[in-house]
């Protein structure tokens, strides 16, 4: 296991009726990307699915608002467009911040478990625990 691998990652924790996503990374952007990957992991097994189209959203507001907006975007894409992200990138762009999603059709992945409904603010945390170490925890209603 390399140091680079340990620097970023995600996990899904148990909650009686919901799921708690935990993500970490060396930068705020990496942590946000890992949170998206955690949510995708709870929705689908991607297998070998490649991306078919690209979608971009602008992120505004506080760290917490950006995290919630990003995860809500994944839920929205799933339900409104039958789309599942296979890759995501968060970066500063033109003075703001954007998230790029590379998407595939839901029919090309294996659905897992109950569909997420929304992102809760209860016990939501997102902060830089120490220089170069970001961590977030967020509850998703399923």
């Amino acid at each position, binding site marked *: 296991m390399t140091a680079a691998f340990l620097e970023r990652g995600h996990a899904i924790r*148990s909650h009686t009726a919901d799921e708690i996503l935990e993500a970490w990374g060396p930068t705020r952007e990496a942590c946000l990307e890992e949170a998206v990957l955690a949510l995708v992991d709870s929705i689908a097994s991607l297998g070998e699915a490649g991306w078919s189209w690209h979608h971009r959203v602008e992120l505004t507001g506080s760290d917490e608002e950006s995290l919630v907006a990003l995860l809500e975007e994944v839920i929205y894409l799933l339900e*409104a467009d039958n789309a599942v992200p296979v890759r995501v990138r968060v970066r500063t762009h033109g003075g703001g911040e954007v998230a790029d999603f590379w998407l595939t059709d839901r029919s090309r992945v294996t659905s897992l478990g*109950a*569909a997420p409904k929304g992102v809760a*603010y209860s016990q939501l945390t997102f902060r830089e625990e120490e220089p170069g170490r970001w961590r977030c925890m967020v509850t998703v209603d399923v």
Partner: protein
Amino acid sequence: MSLQDTGRGHHLVEDSPVRWRLEPRGSMRVPGVVFASQQLLPDVHDDQSLEQVANVATLPGITGASYAMPDVHWGYGFPIGGVAATDVDAGGVVSPGGVGFDISCGVRLLAAPLDEDELSGRLPALMDLLAATIPRGMGRGGVWRVTAVQLDRILTEGAVYPVSEGYGEPGDLQRCEDAGQLLGADPAQVGDRARRRGLGQVGSLGSGNHFLEVQVVDEIFDAETAAAFGLHPGQVCVMIHCGSRGLGHQICSDHVRVMREAMPRHGITVPDAQLACAPVDSPEGRGYLGALAAAANFARVNRQLLTEATRDAFERETGHRELRLVYDVSHNLAKLETHDVDGRRARLCVHRKGATRAFPPGAADLPEDLRTVGQPVLLPGSMGTASYVMAGVAPGEAFASTAHGAGRKMSRHEAKRRGQGGANLRDELGASGVEVRAGSLRDLPEEAPYAYKDVEEVVRVCELAGLSRRVARMRPIGVVKG
């Protein structure tokens, strides 16, 4: 009297073997009241629902108590199984977190004109047909494909709209909460994203704990009330559990955000961010209630269209399509109701999150033919265990509320980890007389009976605590899972 430490600075005082009290502490404005036996009391080490009961007790305008029903479990903001009423004329608030994401999630029960012995042999084919024709699972797909104009009618008119188009019969409206249409819906408060999520899901079950179950009336506890509900022993019934799908989920997300921004203007602080709220009598409060009514109407259309799809399947397989609606009631809703508070009639906003309205006999809002027996309460068990039909009782504890089901006791991951696999679970249930049609065998163990509390104990506590009384026990014989 005994005391139990909740582990977070609160003490639970035993008022009776089925009623516990959290004394007001800190910023709690009212006590917490938990209806539970020792067996059902949440495990304070694994479950934070008692802390959530205390948090709800801090909401501006809350009156009486912050209640927890016997099936209470850990939610976010409110516990699942939480009831709270706020006094509208005393600055009482409405909180989207007191309803949850799945606005107007609820249950309806249909009674078929045939008994179990008339169905035997045809059940597997009926279940196959229901599995093939009931839209379910995550994402898009529904009985109806609608235009934006039709969606507006759904949001405004509720079940009245499909019934007027021939998708149902007048009796379907009489036996639906609010006669199928929650007044006060404001489609302008339903955002574009909510509309887009809802457009492709009109008439769909969804996923998770949502289901369509074919049941048999296994035992009657009150023959007179069962007769008023239209139930007799051995009768085949169908129970449908679903809500407002992505449209309701998005409305919750959108309006929580609006209220988070508005709270400083109203001078409100809350101990849990998901309890974001605004006075009922404020632009944000009125906006949410208008959107909530629209979502409730969507949910009723959803269950109405699944009713018609069920009738179609029964007609094809049994020759009978006359499935009559026993009742349709939500268990995730906030409603403006009038209740007696300290000897006066008060206008309250009653939040029920994972709790069922249970009006007692005599309630003016009940259909005339149910007024002497009380409101039907539909309390689903879990896949493979009994469900119950109950009735509201006087005087109407906890603002006339009761439990909404068995209540989860295990996370989905834990249920999967402990389980023996979906195929085994399906075969096991089949051997015990329940035909299961799962959307995904891999995910079936998430909803296994062992993931839920003991529904018999929940029902027993509901009766002992004076929340509702048993009318009939329903035995599952076929399940279509989302």
